[in-house]
């Protein structure tokens, strides 16, 4: 199994380790719920070094990315600015979702998911060979990535990295800056403020331990999943994959169909009618919503109406919530039935995110 530079550190901190797409990663360090609440109320840190940073270097970098991804890299005008995008196949399915950082006109950095990293590299290299043979595409397995998230996350990072406060206090959301050996980005996957930090993997243990000493709680993949679900952020492989249209996956805001730019998958998207949408659910009855459970709307009781793509228990709401793909005629405020084992449980359709910056944003069923 593949390991990150922090593997032994996780074990020393009594993590329960799990196989996550071939990576030996911490699920939790005792209580996933405690870790979740710590991120919402203070600061937590996640080892996300299993994700892959990829450097794209060469004079054709921007032109290559214009064609490669569905969002428009021309939105990236200031060095350090980041953009969230999908990379589509010609059928309009999602190969992966990723973040692109604009460093210089001849150097962009991409961060892709762990489970899709090999596939992404092969796809990008094949596109490169066709479109921009001079471009270099370099996987950066020499970098570790640590996400520090929560209302106090930035202050605690500043406490640990000398000089970082002056350099990064002015960073807006989705902006990044290199400070010494730390690439510090004001991004995240929790719905809280914070940083995602890339650094040489040889420095990862010392940095992690310094953050711990500064009062940042280690948090595992379990809490990462409940936090991102509350924040209404998609998870690749659950909420979208190569067989789903991003416009039916709550990702329309990341797909640029307005400009003349031709990107891979665009033609298919323009020709495919959008029939479904991603919505939020809050469970009214007792129980737990899980992915793949079937949904029927009150009106029709049609079993095939929809399906939960991500479901679970929301520690902040103290109720079960879900993201679900349903027909376009389902609207916020509707009540739907979810098939859970032998029961049909009632859930309310809501507009997500469920939680942002520690605050509940949806009306809770009583």
């Amino acid at each position: 199994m593949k390991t990150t530079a922090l593997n032994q550190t996780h074990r020393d901190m009594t993590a329960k380790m799990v196989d996550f797409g071939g990576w030996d990663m911490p699920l939790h360090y005792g209580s996933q719920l405690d870790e979740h609440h710590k991120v919402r109320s203070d600061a937590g840190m996640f080892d996300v070094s299993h994700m892959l940073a990829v450097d794209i270097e060469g004079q054709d970098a921007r032109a290559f990315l214009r064609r490669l991804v569905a969002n428009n890299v021309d939105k990236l005008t200031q060095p350090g600015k980041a953009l969230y995008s999908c990379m589509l196949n010609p059928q309009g399915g999602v190969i992966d979702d990723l973040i692109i950082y604009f460093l210089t006109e001849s150097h962009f950095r991409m961060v892709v998911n762990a489970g899709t990293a090999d596939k992404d590299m092969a796809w990008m290299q094949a596109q490169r060979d066709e479109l921009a043979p001079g471009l270099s595409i370099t996987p950066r397995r020499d970098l570790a990535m640590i996400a520090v998230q929560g209302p106090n996350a930035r202050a605690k990072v500043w406490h640990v990295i000398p000089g970082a406060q002056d350099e990064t206090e002015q960073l807006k959301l989705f902006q990044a800056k290199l400070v010494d050996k730390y690439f510090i980005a004001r991004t995240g996957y929790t719905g809280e403020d914070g940083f995602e930090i890339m650094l040489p993997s040889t420095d990862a243990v010392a940095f992690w331990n310094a953050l711990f000493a500064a009062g940042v709680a280690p948090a595992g993949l379990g809490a990462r999943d409940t936090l991102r679900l509350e924040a209404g952020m998609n998870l690749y492989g659950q909420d979208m994959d190569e067989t789903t249209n991003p416009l039916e996956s709550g990702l329309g805001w990341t797909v640029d169909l307005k400009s003349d730019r031709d990107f891979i998958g665009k033609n298919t998207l323009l020709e495919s009618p959008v029939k479904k949408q991603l919505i939020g659910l809050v469970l009214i009855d007792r129980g737990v919503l899980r992915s793949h459970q079937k949904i029927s709307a009150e009106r029709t009781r049609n079993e095939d109406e929809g399906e939960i793509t991500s479901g679970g228990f929301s520690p902040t709401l103290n109720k079960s919530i879900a993201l679900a793909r349903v027909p376009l005629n389902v609207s916020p405020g509707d009540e739907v039935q979810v098939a859970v084992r032998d029961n049909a449980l009632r859930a309310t359709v809501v507009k997500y995110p469920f939680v942002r910056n520690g605050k509940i944003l949806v009306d809770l069923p009583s």
Partner: protein
Amino acid sequence: MSIPNNLKYTKSHEWVRLEGDGTATVGISQHAQELLGDMVFVETPAVGRKLKQSEECAVVESVKAAADVYAPIAGEVTAVNPELESAPEKINQDAYEAWLFKLKPDNASDLDKLLDATAYQNIIESEDH
């Protein structure tokens, strides 16, 4: 990990305690709660329901997954733990205190066929390897 000697166990990680009044109390083991993690929901069987041995009769759901609970022995459900509806985390706090349900065994001697603490310990260890 402590496995109480005064209880009986199943391969599917339930524990059973025979009470003085002849009823049997059922819960899930410390090992099972550790595997599942933080509990968020418990569904217990209806009082009066007659269970066959190994029948699915309850569900415990953690932040991670849902797990079925099986009747360790045949019998009729006489009580369910009312505390777990609002506080499923009691299973995490003490799995051998937070019982799920009680049943009146069809045959009290069925308990003798279940695993003792040593045999259950061996099952857990063989799973870990």
